[in-house]
């Protein structure tokens, strides 16, 4: 099931191992699903939402920029995870998505509710007018360029919908009746208009439980989809729902709470967790996949000495970064451990951050790991937490799936990565 279309025909052989996955975003989900197909038992420690839930639905492999790049290859593991979640589209030729910043951008794939405008090149697309924050259909149509025109339609039903956050508004269209009402309004608008629209662009609003784009398109008789909105919109919630369905189908156990410590428990690992109810508990396993996110998700912390030690000077030269939870891993960038900062209080931000410097330390810092995500024997990292990664959705899936499957299969006595000898772990 995980390795794509023929997974059922040749299910992977299961090991006797217990894999713990810390983190429930794209990387953690990929790791858990990949491990679930291979390990005896998979436990996910779910500390809440992070960068994935804040994402707006574009699936990129490399960071997108205005310069077009050839689409990069996607690993079978990442494809398998997307197939298991069944909430995204991955057109082989890539997609073109619309953002509410007024840009039409390329993407490798997308949340199923977003409108991919590739098939409609050269045809007229309607931008549905409505009084939602940040949604000025006329301005957006102009910004997206030729081929977009505003379309007058009534899609708000209650007064509060002019100020309701995107996600809450989208949740209303999970109700089939409401979705039918919306379809009727759009059909009316299309019938009223003298123009012939090939597809309709809506603000982020098409459901939270599942993407309602296809259902709506069938009801309306024309393709309908969302433009990408602001972080914290429905796209992140749709991911969470799809993840929950996929994880329970794969029988992954979930512990709700924040991991507070990653320690070794011979021969494997022990994760200390503060549960959602505030109680301390521990989870033991043979291997651990840390997928707690980067700076956005909180897995990596920027902690300059002045913030930690307040008025006292730091007791020893100290790296301004740490992992949360503390773990015996090496933090670095550019494939090597970070040099110690040269100022009393930590680094000068001017020297580590974009736009002061390109390829800035803050964009690249993370846990040093091998290609399969191994950061220490039996300890793997995936997603944004990895150093030098592109920090994209599809990279999180690919590294997550790789770490999950390796964690399920390899033994703790595997060779130690070379840099662990060179650098002492940031925190024991």
């Amino acid at each position: 099931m995980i390795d794509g279309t023929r997974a059922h025909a040749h299910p992977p052989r299961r090991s006797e191992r217990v894999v713990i996955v810390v983190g429930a975003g794209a990387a953690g989900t990929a790791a858990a699903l990949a491990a679930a197909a291979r390990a005896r038992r998979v436990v996910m420690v779910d500390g809440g939402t992070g960068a994935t839930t804040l994402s707006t639905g574009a699936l990129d492999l490399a960071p997108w920029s205005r310069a077009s790049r050839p689409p990069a290859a996607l690993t079978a593991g990442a494809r398998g995870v997307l197939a298991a979640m069944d909430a995204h589209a991955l057109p082989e030729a890539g997609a073109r998505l619309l953002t509410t910043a007024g840009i039409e951008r390329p993407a490798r794939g997308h949340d199923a509710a977003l409108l991919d405008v590739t098939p409609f090149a050269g045809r007229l697309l309607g931008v549905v007018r409505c009084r939602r924050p940040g949604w000025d259909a006329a301005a957006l149509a102009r910004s997206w360029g030729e081929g977009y025109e505003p379309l007058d339609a009534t899609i708000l039903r209650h007064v509060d919908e002019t100020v309701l956050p995107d996600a809450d508004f989208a949740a209303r269209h999970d109700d089939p009746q409401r979705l039918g009402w919306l379809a009727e309004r759009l059909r009316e608008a299309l019938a009223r208009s003298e123009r012939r629209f090939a597809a309709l662009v809506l603000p982020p609003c098409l459901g939270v439980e599942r993407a309602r784009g296809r259902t709506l398109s069938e009801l309306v008789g024309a393709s309908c989809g969302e433009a990408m909105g602001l972080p914290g919109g429905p796209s992140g919630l749709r991911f969470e729902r799809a993840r929950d369905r996929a994880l329970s189908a794969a029988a992954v156990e979930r512990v709700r709470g924040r991991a507070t410590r990653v320690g070794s428990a011979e021969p494997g690992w022990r994760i200390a967790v503060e549960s959602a109810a505030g109680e301390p508990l521990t989870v033991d396993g043979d291997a651990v996949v840390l997928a707690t996110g980067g700076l956005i998700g909180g897995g990596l912390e920027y902690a300059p000495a002045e913030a930690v030690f307040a008025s006292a000077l730091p007791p020893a030269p100290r790296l301004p970064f740490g992992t949360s939870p503390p773990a015996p891993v090496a933090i670095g960038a550019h494939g090597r451990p970070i040099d110690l900062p040269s100022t009393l209080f930590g680094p000068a931000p001017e020297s580590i951050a974009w736009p002061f410097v390109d390829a800035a330390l803050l964009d690249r810092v993370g846990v040093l790991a091998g290609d399969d995500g191994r950061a220490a024997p039996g300890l793997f990292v995936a997603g944004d937490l990895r150093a030098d990664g592109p920090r994209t959705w599809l990279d999180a899936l690919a590294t997550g799936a790789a770490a999950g499957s390796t964690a399920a299969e390899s033994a703790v006595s595997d060779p130690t990565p070379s840099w662990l000898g060179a650098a002492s772990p940031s925190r024991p």
Partner: protein
Amino acid sequence: MSDPAVSVLPPPTAMPVAREPLADATEVDVAVVGGGINGTGVARDLALRGLRVALFERNDLAFGASGNSSGMIHGGVRYLSRAPHVTETSCRDSGYIQRIAPHLLFRIPFLMPVRSGPKGRVALELIDAYFRAYDDYQPLKRGEPHCRLDPSELAELEPGLVGAVVGGITFDEWGVDGARLCVLNAIDAIEHGGRVYVHTTVDAVEHAPARAAAGPRYVVTASDRFTLERVRVRARVVVNATGAWSPVTAALGGLPQARVRVRPGKGIHVVLDRRVSNYGILSEAIDGRQIFVYPWQNVSLLGTTDDDYYGDLDDVQATSEEVRYLVQGVARVFPAVREARAIGTYAGVRPTLYAYGTNEDALSREHEIVDHTADGAPGVYSMIGGKLASYRLFAQEMADRVARGDFESQAPCTTHVRALPGGDRAVDAVRLAERHGVTPVAARRLVYRHGSRAERVLERIERRPGERDVTCPCEPVLEAEVRHVVADELARTVDDVSRRTRLGLGACGGMRCAARCGQIVAEERGLSPREGGLMAGEFLVRQARSRLVALGPVQARQEALALAHLRSSMGQP
């Protein structure tokens, strides 16, 4: 080998004579160079006296020191012992500003804790006596007299204070939005017949070829920085009010730069994401300078530094060392500033009067008018120094000199009695909000910035209901206000809009509003959407730079998210 002909500034020769035909030149009485508080103030004053004024600003109004000040029209308490007349004029003028722009002012009570120590008690007595003297000036600006507090009262008023204290005192100051003060002066000048050219660099100031006894003596040539369009103006009088840029401007007119020397003092402020203290709090930096944290509009400010600056005046930035200096100094008495999220910094260069050998702080903020008659340019003046609190007085002195000396006009100065735009009467923000169907918070901020003109902004909504939308949710700023400042307040970029409305200066750093603002500005100005997007991108990059120097643990997360979102929705700038 350096080529003597190549120099950053033109050599200080005598002012040249214009050779090109002047058919296209507009005739005015006075050309003012510089759109800071001195330039806009004097332009307004002259316009109110019925003179024809043209003002040129190279960047945006309030781009330099005026828009990057501490945002206070304080009474100059620190000059009390050295130069009490500075304190008096500051206080008196502060009172006048309250009269002409009451909507723009807000009270900031300050606490000054006095630390225990061998001389603590004596220090408290001395400070108490010092402020007793300051109390004499407080009525001039409707300030409350100071209070003496014992340690328990201090702790009650401001529970976040730490350290052993023998007591403290309070004193009263007024906050103001310096950028808006400049804009209001410029708008009033326009409404009284003046012309204001923003983003227009003066390229040359030349003698007019034929000098009539009462006619124009000078030709000012300027060009628009975006459209490269040339503007030529003939004027009888030229006022150089370019602050720290003054020597550069003087050189453009062939005047000796040494006559308009300024000591460029760079000052930075750190912006915290909310009002972290109830009162302004004074503290001592490690070198003994007075620094402070104070609530200002929706945020708290930490200020300020004072260092000589010899860098690029068009791109002054705070550095992380300066931020650390302030945070460390204030955290000594108010440690909450360490944990607070710093959402930005800003920096400006004060044009203090030039004096050699004194340290930066001892330089007075007094002002001076330089008459360039001796340099062969009668009717050319430079305004040197000055401070926000006494800008009106400085403008009046300058305008008196020009009006009486060069135009034989006896029209009296009226800038202290005639209200600035929007300052004529109070309006009820809550009722306004109800009438136009906008949120009361947005209406309250709108009324703060625009006074009675808020009604005019909100009337736009009746014509186009879509403008009721909130463009910047942090501050908040309505779409109607964004369009208003582009249409009626000379804003031309997202940056300009931000300076006039505080759009994008809140906790999200413009992540949620810059793109939309770019679309609106492009639409209002008839530019392509792409240009609007580029404008928004430039604003975001500049803001990111100003935030990062104050990067802390919490802001690092927000910064990463903002950058990821920017890259995802607009492409990597």
